[in-house]
């Protein structure tokens, strides 16, 4: 139920976006992320047709950096 899938924004028209989810294009509502400055090319998480958050690549990297005792070699590679 709380399943959400990541999709890449390919088109924005007002509060509607077209997202690419693993090669499949679908429509998603941007109404719940109106304050997150979503742009074409951003990754968003989509739940029941609504984008619920932007995915932040910098944060993803920061977490791996914080765990460098686990992730060190791979980050350098």
């Amino acid at each position, binding site marked *: *139920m*709380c*399943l*959400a899938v*990541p999709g890449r924004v390919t088109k924005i028209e007002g509060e509607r976006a077209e997202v690419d989810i693993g090669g499949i294009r679908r429509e998603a*509502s941007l*109404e*719940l*992320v*109106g*304050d997150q400055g979503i742009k074409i090319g951003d*990754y968003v*998480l989509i*739940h*029941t*047709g*609504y984008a*619920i*958050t932007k*995915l*932040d*690549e910098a*944060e*993803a*990297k*920061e*977490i*791996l950096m914080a*765990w460098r*005792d*686990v*992730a060190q070699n*791979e*980050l350098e590679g």
Partner: protein
Amino acid sequence: MFSKYRDKGLVRKAAERIAEVAGGEPLRIMHVCGTHEWAITHNGLRDLLPEGVQVVAGPGCPVCVTPGGEIDALCALSLERGITITTFGDVLRVPGRKGSLAEAKASGADIRVVYGISDAVRMAQQEADREFVHFAIGFETTAPTTAVEVIKGPPGNFSVFTSHKLIPPAMEFLLESGARIDGFICPGHVSTIIGSDAYKDLASRYAKPMAVAGFEPLDIMLAILEIAMQRKRGVAEVYNEYARAVKAEGNKVALRAIEKAFGVSDADWRGIGNIPDSGLKLRGEYSKYDAAQRYGITLAGGDTMPEGCSCGDVLLGTLRPEGCPLFGSECTPESPVGPCMVSIEGTCAIAFKYSDLKLRSRRP
């Protein structure tokens, strides 16, 4: 960068670190999210954990905790009054006390599966001569989608039967009941809405380490490692491992929509009981879209699982599905007895789906 979270080598390294930090001490961690249960089982993460470190599934499947009486009431509404019910596919085959929505559909009721509530609103707009009731199930992740549609003002032939539930009150209920839980993996997508700060008070009051986690194997292993480390250091904080999707304060737009459309109420969780302040009901001007009010639906409450079914214990994390006498014999995804065997997020359905895989992987 996101693919690093699926890296097998990193997952194994995290498992080694968990073993070092846990140091052979028992550690019982609960998660409260059906998608976490799927990710843990699908990726075989339990087999990577050292002896004594356990991850158990709590009541993280909204469909599973939806009272059977609500399902019965919606079946009756459609069969007796000809009202169209829209809902998520996951709910369709869940047995109520008298039957499922799928059975009502087979008997002629107009029950339609939708991907999201906006599809249901669109149907109501296109078919103005029919009355539509959307059965709105889901935790904090789904509640804002209902709120947004109701605030926008759907057509007059559309109403919502809300069964939305809140996760932190359920976590508190479990902690208060004395369940053996040493820490929580907090649900990733619920947390995108409510934020990682939403658990701070619980973590400190009950002295339980917590980590918000994403859904890749490394996300979950890092959350377990974090909880083990906090325990070792004797602290109880909320760590946000899923920072790429979750902010400390959550999604403010979504939270404002929830607050505008809903008031907090007590709610019945099937197989668990009534949990104070764990439900959402439409309020103020939006209560005109409340299907329970519109059609005079009253529920008896005190809902139980079907006879002989152990879903209640499975939802509380006190029993693994394999421990239920009905598992895999009388109760299968083809012919489910209890709700945890129906939903794709149900602990029993997940255990059943991957039980064969586990047997195969253990063959020499």
